[in-house]
């Protein structure tokens, strides 16, 4: 077990219920700084619900979420971004009628300060901040390989580039923990390969911690430092990719057992 200060995200016995349905049930999970952690599980296992609990969209009924040693359990989503957690979505959710640059600039919202008065009077501080933000956005545009497309409406980008823009927007808030919800969905093998390189780069060069939901087992097993498996809202397994792959519980969850779990999962 790593030293406590190495744990960036510590989820303790979190439970989320929707009426009678328990979507996430007493899940414990720890993620170490500068690692890539994956969350897998069959459809409807509660993975995205778990993400929504971490990012503040859902308030868990029980349990606690500690980020950088501070509890964030009941914070609003916008406060959680300020704390340093940023995310992407399973079905891409960009600001469609805004340009690529504007999407990135909205991502920088948390670390900008200008208010209405500053904006109307265009004070020196506001103007300076805006210039800084523009420069950062230009750098980010380059980093995600969308240079030259900054003034395109997000809606008009091809699918693969929309994915990249969404990650770029999430990165714009300078997070320490990046949550990716099925980042390779809909990508061809080559794009998937590029994304793997990109995610590793984020961890190694930018020092980010990455937590991702992924269905593509090849991706999960090749890039993860740690894999957690959810099934019916419960964590049924955790460990290195090799450990998880060998776990009979996991095999049962995915392939079903003689007891007919398969039909239920479907």
């Amino acid at each position: 077990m790593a030293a406590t200060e190495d744990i960036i995200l510590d989820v303790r016995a979190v439970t989320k219920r929707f009426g009678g349905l328990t979507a996430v049930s007493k899940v414990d999970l720890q993620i170490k700084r500068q690692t890539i952690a994956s969350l897998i599980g069959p459809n409807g296992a509660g993975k995205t619900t778990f993400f929504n609990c971490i990012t503040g969209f859902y308030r868990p009924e029980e349990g606690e979420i500690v980020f950088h040693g501070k509890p964030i359990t009941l914070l609003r989503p916008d406060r959680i971004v300020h704390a340093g957690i940023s995310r992407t979505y399973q079905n891409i959710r960009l600001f469609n009628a805004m340009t690529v640059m504007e999407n990135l600039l909205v991502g920088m919202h948390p670390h900008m300060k200008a208010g209405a008065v500053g904006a109307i009077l265009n004070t020196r501080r506001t103007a300076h901040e805006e210039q800084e933000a523009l420069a950062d956005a230009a750098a980010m545009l380059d980093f995600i390989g969308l240079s030259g497309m900054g003034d395109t409406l997000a809606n008009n980008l091809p699918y693969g580039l929309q994915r990249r823009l969404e990650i770029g927007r999430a990165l714009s808030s300078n997070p320490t923990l990046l949550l990716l919800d099925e980042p390779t969905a809909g990508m061809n093998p080559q794009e998937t390969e590029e994304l793997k390189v990109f995610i590793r780069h984020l961890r190694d060069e930018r020092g980010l911690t990455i937590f991702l939901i992924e269905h593509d087992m090849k991706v999960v097993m090749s890039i993860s430092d740690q894999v957690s498996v959810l099934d019916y809202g419960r964590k049924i397994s955790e460990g290195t990719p090799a450990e998880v792959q060998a776990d009979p519980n996991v095999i049962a969850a995915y392939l079903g057992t003689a007891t007919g779990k398969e039909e239920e999962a479907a």
Partner: protein
Amino acid sequence: MIPRGTLRNGLNVGFATAFIVVIGMPAVFAERYIIADVLSFSATMLVAIFLGAGFFAVRHSAADSGQVKLALNGAVAAAVTALVAIIALVLCIQINASAISIGMIAVFPNVSGALVSQLTFGQESATAGYLMLLATAAIIGALGGLAILLPKRILNIGAVTLLMVVVLGLLQAQINTIITLVDALWVTGAVAIGYIIATWRARPRLAARVGEAAVAGALLGLLIGILLLLLGATSETMPALLGKHPPALLQSFVLGKSTLAMLLLLTGVSLALSAIGATLSATTGSIHRLGITVLLSLLLLGILNVFGKLDLPAAILITAVMIAGQLLLERTTRRSEAVFTQFRPAEQQNSQRLVSLAGLALALILPMFLTGYINNVVDLIGLYIMMGLGLNIVVGFAGLLNLGYVAFFTIGAYTVGVLTTPNAITCGGVPAAGIATQDIATLCTGITTFWVAWPAAVLMAGLTGMLLGIPVLRLRGDYLAIVTLGFGEIIRLLALSDVFKAYLGGAQGIVNIPSPVIDLTTLSEPLVNSGVPILAQLGTAISQPIALSGPGQIYYLILFGVVVATFVTYRLGKSRLGRAWRSMREDEAVSQAMGVNLVQNKLLAFTIGAAFAGIGGGIFGSYLKSIFPNSFTLLVSINVLAVVIIGGMGNIPGIFVGAVVIFGLPEALREFQEYRLLMFGGLLVLTMLLRPQGLLPPRPVRLEEKAKAALAKKGT
């Protein structure tokens, strides 16, 4: 052979046309001529309908369809349209006849003999007339169908030209005195000289371009001055020039001025005009287009002034000028933009400032050219621009559909009304009705001037906007619309209620609201005594308080409000706040996940939007001098929303265009007043069908180049 789409199209347009015919619009508009004694407005309307029916029936046909097929489709669609209208007309005549035969009054009172003869080319036999109408419709429809073969730019030029001729024709009586041809030629000439010099010398820097053009302009002014002197101009006489009316603008530089003053004025103004021309020769596409269009309009107004009315020769001349102008515009806009992009950022900014300054100067002198009635219309447009800009922040930027926007306008107007008149609030709790006139001055110490009440009105409106925002924070879309709609009614009913009668006047409203008065009399004496002639003149001018009572004076208050609202909208729109608003409109949840504080930003949008309505409402109250609860109905909210939607949501120039289209045209045409709501609905439907984004939708802001520059600067 004939696709079903064609028939459906013809039927759709046909039902609309039948409606227009049955309510008697063609007969009403037959009196109004577009081109004197040649083309009436009702004929124009029918031609436009048939052309449109033909054009839109084939709009989606394959690009390679033959001419015969296109013409045939267009003809069928237009003929179906005419047929539906004729059937409706005949039916209505039958119904009328049977109603009258059993002693009732006509069911369709607008279906008259005049209407029928209007539609049947005055033929003796109605059947022959109807057949003629059908044939005419088919021919026009065929032309409409064939029009699709024309290149898009020709179509655009044609459409804009025709529209301009129609607008000029409709408004001819009101606008033919705005400017004389000589004045128009001088203004456009001076601007054109600047433009041409700057383009010809092709200097890459802004200062050189403007400087050289200004010198040329000054020379032109001097030349005109000398020419006028040679023609015999003195401080008492103005030589006769082209046209019936003396050139008011030039004349004002000549009469009552010494020769030196006249030469200086002419030189100075020409210099400024040429500088504007040089600026226009290197500016952004939209400003270039706008600038040239304004000049072109001046020229057209001048032509109209010489002819007095739009007769056939005038119409031909105007069409020719319009087409030439647009061809020119097409060729020059890209060049102008290319030069502009080569400017350094500081130069670009300076160029934009020059343009704003010129625009402001034009806005400042505008009322001098307009008659009282048109001034009234301009004021109304201004008020709606202000409200449109405010609602645009709430609906266009933040995406919060507000149907009770009139509430804030009401609060603005009532705040000014209450604070500037005697009532229970300003008279220490005593109802105004119980106070004798001579006691008002001693009792009602709470009465303030407009200049105190106005900011208070803005504050009150903004505050109410915020208060309304709190309970509806969680609502979106239709739910929000319903709640805000109710709020608008609540405010009106509160103003109407007897409970607040002592304060707000109930159904009688607030009357005798004083006009805003600019009182600078204390400054007058020192200025008169200063000994400097110009200052002394200024001192005499302000020795009496100036009351802003007429439409031409209130205009300046409204202009101020519009400038403030535009400026604030512009700055906010491109700021962090504007981006946060637009991201909320796109996807509230994601916006919050990007760190946008929804509560704070929504309340800000509500507050600022409401404050704009407060600015307008405050002026409205003291402009009309009396306000009644029933001036503030739901219809006002809907009007403002229509301005935003038709103009183009989220776009400042769009709001201006929307306000002009919706309030300018119908106000200026008395015949339209009756059909105003009908036209409104028609316009909304057409906009939704043809341009769902509005007439001038916002264009994506270009940021990448700027950002790259910022990055490069940071790196060094």
